[in-house]
């Protein structure tokens, strides 16, 4: 319980030098300040709110007081001030925390000065700052100034925005639930639930999730990894194929080289020399031509020879010889053989054979040989040099007759040419044998083979280079692919870890979201239940009518009837006051506040018959709070006083405020 033990007012309106000493009981702490209307009840109320928050609540609510706001300084004192004079207005509140027994002094002072122009001024801005708060340091037995006075007031007494539920005017209660009460309830429930903390946690989680998502995006996904593995497999397959091609190419090269070597060896073995063949061929060709030429020359010579002797034979000698020889033959063969007729063909034949037409019968072994002798005799023209063996028995003679010299010349030429021909033919033969032994066709074939093999080898070599380059390129590709796969596998591990983290974080977010809902629900429930509890305990006559207290989705506080009707607007003034007090008590419990109740005219608008009921209800709420009631004599009836006395265990503190000129005088009724 927080207890206002004393309030000292100096020059605050009608309270020039007044001091209220309230009950310091930790239980049933009830204080009454009795004053007539216009005497200073509301001023005392305002003095407390001014001291704590720099605001006079009555002036905030009711505009008719605003003109007076400038003059918190007692008007008489202000009037008597002369130029240059200054005077302080102060309110000092002595507060005790019954739980800790800590004591505090809260003091607000405003200095008023009369300026040269006669205006009475003070620094209004001072009202915006916190009052001075001193705490009693038991260790040093002295007062110590607090660094954070606002925090002390908010934490110790009441948050500024909650004060209207604890410091209120009974005559203006309606405003509590008319003005932004739903926003207020929402704000308070969220405050007590510390939703800011939870929302910040959720925001942090969202940021972290965002960060995890960004990290996730930068990693190789499982799908991409699969694609990379496929790519690697294709590359490996390609590499293998190229390698096989390379092996094949190398084998082919080996084979080609082998064939080439074989070819070269064979060529070497054959002793092939292209130049030699050419020389031989050229020699053969020359020799052949020479043979042909010689043959032609011989032919020409023989033609010449024949031409020269044939006419002579035909015309002069040959016919007679033939006639005679035929006759001889005819006779020699006893007319059994008929000599052939003498024709040109026959003569040509004779000349060709270089034989005598009688060759046959001149045969040395012929049985007609003997006739030859006879023939010899008869043919006197023919000399004796007849040679039967050679059959040239007469030509010489005859040729000599014509032109032996010329004949011999031609004949010698022919002989020479024939010798020459023979020689050339032998040479040709020799060349042919030589060339034949060289196997030109084989050499040509081998030469072709060599060319083909060399060309094939070049191609294979080129192919080998291309394949090696392709294999190297694929190797680079493979390395890149492998690295990416390695990274992908690593990323995969990281992805799993990230996914795990994400799962936890996302679930943590759910927990916070659910926890948020739970806290709001729990605190709202708490607020509703306690309000209902207090209300039903106090409004005993109406409790059967009340079904429940509801705080709807828009945070509107309602009293629902058993017929499901909203009773909030139908409450009487007294019931409204009890409702407000019940809610304030529930709020106090929820927020664990120890705030005193300061109520101006608590029973002013309550019907006489209900006044006692309301008064009797105070103990229910009073249990944990000090009560300071500012009452008029009309509401503070004897019955009320008796009830309050009873509530306070006869320790009721009662002050009566009396007017004395422009000042108030306090009388404490013991």
């Amino acid at each position, binding site marked *: 319980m927080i207890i206002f033990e004393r309030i000292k007012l100096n020059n605050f309106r009608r309270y020039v030098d007044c001091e209220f000493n309230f009950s310091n009981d930790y239980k049933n702490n009830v204080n009454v300040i009795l004053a007539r209307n216009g005497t200073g009840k509301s001023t005392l109320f305002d003095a407390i709110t001014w001291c704590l928050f720099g605001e006079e609540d009555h002036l905030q609510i009711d505009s008719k007081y605003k003109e007076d706001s400038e003059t918190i300084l007692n008007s008489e004192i202000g009037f008597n001030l002369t130029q240059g004079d200054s005077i302080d207005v102060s309110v000092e509140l002595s507060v005790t925390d019954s739980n800790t027994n800590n004591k505090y002094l809260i003091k607000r002072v405003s200095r008023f000065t009369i300026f040269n122009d006669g205006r009475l001024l003070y620094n209004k801005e001072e009202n915006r700052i916190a009052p001075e708060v001193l705490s009693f340091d038991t260790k040093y037995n002295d007062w110590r100034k607090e660094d954070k006075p606002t925090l002390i007031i908010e934490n110790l007494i009441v948050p500024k925005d909650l004060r209207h539920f604890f410091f209120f005017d009974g005559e203006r209660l309606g405003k509590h639930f008319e003005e932004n009460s739903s926003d207020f309830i929402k704000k308070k429930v969220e405050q007590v639930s*510390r939703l800011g903390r939870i929302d*910040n*946690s959720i925001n942090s989680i969202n940021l972290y999730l965002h960060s995890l998502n960004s990290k996730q995006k930068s990693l190789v996904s499982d799908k991409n990894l699969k694609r990379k593995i496929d790519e690697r497999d294709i590359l490996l397959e390609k590499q293998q194929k190229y390698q096989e091609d390379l092996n094949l190419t190398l084998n082919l090269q080996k084979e080609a080289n082998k064939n080439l070597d074989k070819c070269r060896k064979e060529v070497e073995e054959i002793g092939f020399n292209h130049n030699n063949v050419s020389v031989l061929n050229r020699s053969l060709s020359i020799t052949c031509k020479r043979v042909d030429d010689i043959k032609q020359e011989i032919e020409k010579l023989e033609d010449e020879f024949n031409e020269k002797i044939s006419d002579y034979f035909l015309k002069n000698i040959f016919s007679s010889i033939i006639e005679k020889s035929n006759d001889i033959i005819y006779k020699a063969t006893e007319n059994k053989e008929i000599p052939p007729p003498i024709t040109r063909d026959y003569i040509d034949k004779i000349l060709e054979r270089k034989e005598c037409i009688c060759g046959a019968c001149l045969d040395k072994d012929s049985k007609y040989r003997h006739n030859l002798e006879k023939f010899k005799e008869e043919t006197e023209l023919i000399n004796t040099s007849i040679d039967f063996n050679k059959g040239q028995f007469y030509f010489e003679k005859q040729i000599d007759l014509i032109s032996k010299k010329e004949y011999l010349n031609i004949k010698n030429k022919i002989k020479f040419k024939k010798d020459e021909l023979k020689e050339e033919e032998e040479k040709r033969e020799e060349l042919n044998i030589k060339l034949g032994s060289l196997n030109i066709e084989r050499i040509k074939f081998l030469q072709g083979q060599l060319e083909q093999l060399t060309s094939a080898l070049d191609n294979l070599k080129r192919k080998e280079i291309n394949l090696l380059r392709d294999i190297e390129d694929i190797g680079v590709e493979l390395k890149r692919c492998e690295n990416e796969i390695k990274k992908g596998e690593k990323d995969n591990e990281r992805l799993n870890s990230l996914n795990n983290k994400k799962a936890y974080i996302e679930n943590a977010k759910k927990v*916070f979201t659910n*926890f948020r809902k739970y806290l709001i629900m729990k605190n709202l429930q708490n607020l509703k239940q306690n309000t209902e509890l207090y209300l039903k305990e106090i409004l005993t006559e109406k409790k059967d009518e009340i079904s429940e207290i509801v705080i709807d989705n828009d945070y509107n506080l309602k009293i629902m009837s058993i017929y499901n009707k909203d009773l909030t607007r139908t409450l009487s003034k007294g019931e409204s006051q009890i409702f407000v007090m019940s809610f304030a008590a529930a709020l106090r419990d929820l927020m*664990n506040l120890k705030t005193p109740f300061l109520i101006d005219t608590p029973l002013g608008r309550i019907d006489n018959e209900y006044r006692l009921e309301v008064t009797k209800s105070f103990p229910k709420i009073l249990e944990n709070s000090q009560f300071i009631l500012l009452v008029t004599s009309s509401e503070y009836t004897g019955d009320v006083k008796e009830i309050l006395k009873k509530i306070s265990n006869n320790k009721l503190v009662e002050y009566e405020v009396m007017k004395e000129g422009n000042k108030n005088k306090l009388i404490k009724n013991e």
Partner: protein
Amino acid sequence: MNNSELDDKLLFELENFDINDDDIDSEIDLNHLKRLTKKILNNEITYGGGGDNYDRYEKMLEEVFEDDNF
């Protein structure tokens, strides 16, 4: 109740909050999740979350995930 007391109450509430919810993935270890949420909330209460403190917040979470007991 001052803010510090409210924060203590909040931690106490989370400690006793039943997270065994249908929304939570069945594969998640609830004890771990509880530890994580408490750490997050405690961090928020101790330092205030998000914004400029995000790096520290992220570090704190990484430490939680690296914790063998997690």
